[in-house]
């Protein structure tokens, strides 16, 4: 699902922008592993924080969509019961996923579709590439899909000589700029409209040479470019928002209509879907088609909802393949504490309310899944050591807006515990220092008398306090005092004050 939120303007005017020297339009490049790339979160965040334009773009965009979401959610009288229903359906799905997947396979097959099972990214990419090769074409059109971003499908197809054309406006911008998406719903949220104009002029061969950065003109240029692709493509590749086990129906919700073109015009449709996207019955769509658009684009209803069930003779694609992707999902499912991350319907409401995401943007997370949901999903999918579980203040805003009530803060804490055990024998100095500090604090804080003595220690800092504050501490205290003062510790702790008061009685 994608939407057009308007594009922030860095400046107005026609012609190439003077600051855009050739090459600077290029994005972060396409990584080897779309779930783990770039610098550490703290380092990547620091770089993003230094980019004032990016912070303004993100601040404006997330605040606009937050407000829209709050308004349309506020008008639904049974929003909380809807969230409960969404959560209950997904919990049920995870409890009987194997059975439901087989039901889906049976029903898709019965309606003329072909189901493929992919254990990981490489297997999914191989399946899709061989299906496309069979059709003897070297170009496919794509509907915006997180699953295919996750497996790096476009790069895998390119190695086979197949060009995959993203047809969602924002995904097209990301692709043309050799960039990575920085938001689940609004992948080019980090770009302003002047950059987009420059990207089109430099990288889109049929862009009008007098293109301006007026959003309508940009959209029209993309539209003309894509229309030619829709009409010539023999194969389309999509993801899926939902798959109904009972009927074998697939559903894609979107805003631009590009998805509808891809899903109806080409002769062959290949859908790559994470195995967690299932819902048991067609009636369950009623819940999710209310929850998803209000949570994601802040609309009562998304403009286009496309559903298809197998193959319908004489109408739409005459060949349909469904690739069911695991890629770490069964590992997440096996983890009782973290499995509800699989309930996610990719609405991105948690990104838009997250105070960390709002300031650092999506690339800092080094995964196609950024923000709070990315911080719990990415490390679980990869099973690797990660600093993402710490990329949160645990403020709880994500949990409050999640349409399927994923308790992201609690899962973050679970994953932090996992990081600590992974770091157990780590030779990393920072890991060892943290461990030693936490052990010492645990000893001091597990007994009233020991704590009472330890609590007097900060008093020593009064020696370096000036005017009631401490402005500079040595490392690691410098991590604090670099941007904040520390107040002067008191002469007397509360423990000591109370003891004195009792003695005085």
């Amino acid at each position: 699902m994608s939407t057009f939120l308007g594009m922030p303007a860095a400046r107005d005017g026609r012609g190439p922008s003077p600051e855009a020297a050739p090459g600077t339009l290029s994005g972060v490049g396409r990584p080897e592993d779309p779930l783990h790339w770039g610098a550490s979160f703290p380092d990547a965040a620091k770089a993003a924080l230094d980019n004032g334009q990016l912070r303004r773009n993100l601040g404006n965009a997330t605040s606009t969509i937050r407000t829209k979401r709050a308004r349309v959610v506020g008008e639904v009288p049974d929003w909380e019961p809807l969230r409960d229903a969404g959560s209950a359906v997904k919990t049920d799905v995870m409890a009987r996923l194997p059975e439901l997947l087989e039901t889906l396979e049976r029903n898709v097959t019965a309606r003329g579709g072909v189901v493929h099972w992919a254990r990981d990214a490489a297997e999914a990419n191989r399946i899709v590439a061989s299906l496309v090769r069979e059709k003897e074409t070297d170009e496919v059109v794509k509907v915006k899909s997180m699953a295919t971003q996750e497996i790096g499908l476009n790069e895998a197809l390119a190695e086979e000589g197949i060009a995959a054309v993203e047809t969602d406006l924002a995904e097209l911008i990301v692709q043309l700029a050799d960039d990575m998406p920085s938001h689940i719903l609004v992948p080019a949220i980090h770009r302003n409209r002047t950059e987009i104009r420059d990207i089109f002029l430099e990288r889109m061969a049929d862009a009008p040479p007098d293109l301006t950065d007026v959003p309508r003109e940009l959209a029209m240029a993309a539209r003309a470019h894509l229309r030619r692709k829709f009409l010539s493509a023999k194969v389309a590749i999509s993801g899926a928002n939902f798959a109904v086990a009972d009927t074998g129906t697939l559903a894609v919700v979107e805003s631009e209509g590009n998805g509808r073109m891809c899903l109806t015009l080409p002769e062959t449709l290949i859908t790559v879907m994470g195995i967690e996207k299932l819902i048991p019955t067609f009636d369950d769509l009623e819940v999710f088609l209310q929850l998803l658009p209000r949570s994601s684009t802040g609309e009562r209803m998304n403009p286009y909802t496309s559903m298809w069930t197998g193959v319908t003779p004489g109408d739409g694609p005459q060949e349909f393949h469904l690739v069911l992707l695991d890629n770490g999902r069964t590992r997440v499912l096996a983890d009782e504490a973290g499995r509800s991350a699989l309930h996610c319907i990719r609405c991105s409401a948690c990104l838009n309310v997250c105070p960390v995401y709002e300031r650092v943007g999506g690339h800092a997370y080094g995964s196609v899944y950024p923000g709070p949901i990315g911080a719990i999903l990415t490390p679980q999918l990869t099973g690797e050591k990660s600093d993402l579980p710490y990329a949160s203040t645990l403020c709880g805003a994500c949990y409050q807006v999640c349409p399927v009530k994923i308790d992201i803060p609690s899962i973050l804490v679970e994953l932090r515990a996992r990081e600590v055990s992974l770091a157990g024998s780590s030779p990393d100095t920072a890991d060892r220092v943290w461990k030693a500090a936490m052990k010492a604090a645990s000893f001091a804080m597990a007994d009233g008398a020991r704590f009472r003595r330890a609590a007097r220690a900060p008093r020593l800092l009064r020696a370096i306090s000036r005017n009631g504050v401490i402005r500079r501490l040595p490392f690691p205290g410098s991590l604090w005092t670099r941007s904040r003062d520390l107040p002067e510790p008191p002469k007397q702790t509360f423990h000591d004050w109370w003891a004195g008061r009792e003695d005085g009685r």
Partner: protein
Amino acid sequence: MRIALAATCIADAMFPQAPRAVVTLLERLGHEVVFPAGQACCGQMHVNTGYLAEAVPVVQNHVRTFAPVADGEWDAVVVPSGSCTGSIRHQQAMVLERAGLPAEARAATAVAERTYELSELLVDVLGVTDVGAWFPHRVTYHPTCHSLRMLGVGDKPERLLRAVEGLELAPLAEAEGCCGFGGTFSLKNADTSAAMLQDKVATVVDTGAEVLTAGDWSCLMHIGGGLSRGGTAVRPMHLAEILASTREAPVVLGPPAGSGTHQEVAR
């Protein structure tokens, strides 16, 4: 009522004026305050940083110290912190359960069920919103994340503040946004934390308030550290300190921290 006070480790060591104000306030309202000396910390820092094994003895100590409330020796436990109350209510039993201590986990739940954050105790348990306080200053209130979203204290702190004689409550823009503290987040992701703090400080300064208040000294320490670093005159004060102030025993504002003439909290 006989009310046991959990001072919180950070306030005990760094901001004793807050638990002292709780004592003053509750005694003024006619209640008896008990301070179980065995207390140290609720374990939140360890849990939220992922050190669950190291959290166990800390949580055990807390549960042991406050267990008498479950036997009726005290009527309630009060905590002048939303996040510590949240940890007691939502994390302690989980930590003990995972450590294979189901009986202690049940004891933790029994203690947690009788544990209240200060505004909850005043409004829900004691049924007061006008505590007879006097504080003739312009004040803005930051609803801390865990008070707001973990405990759901709603507008209880604001109702208490509005009933304070002489107090002018200045609305805070983007009030529900996190200040960026997040415990060890402020060290592990110091730059992001500082960026969030910068925005919070700007909205606080925009209110024109003399005092910033909240129900958690941890968040106040963070925002207060940003306010004094920024050379602003806004003073951080815990909700309890404002509610403890009366005409007879007023809390007098000294010059702000870092301003050259340091404030000692008057009492």
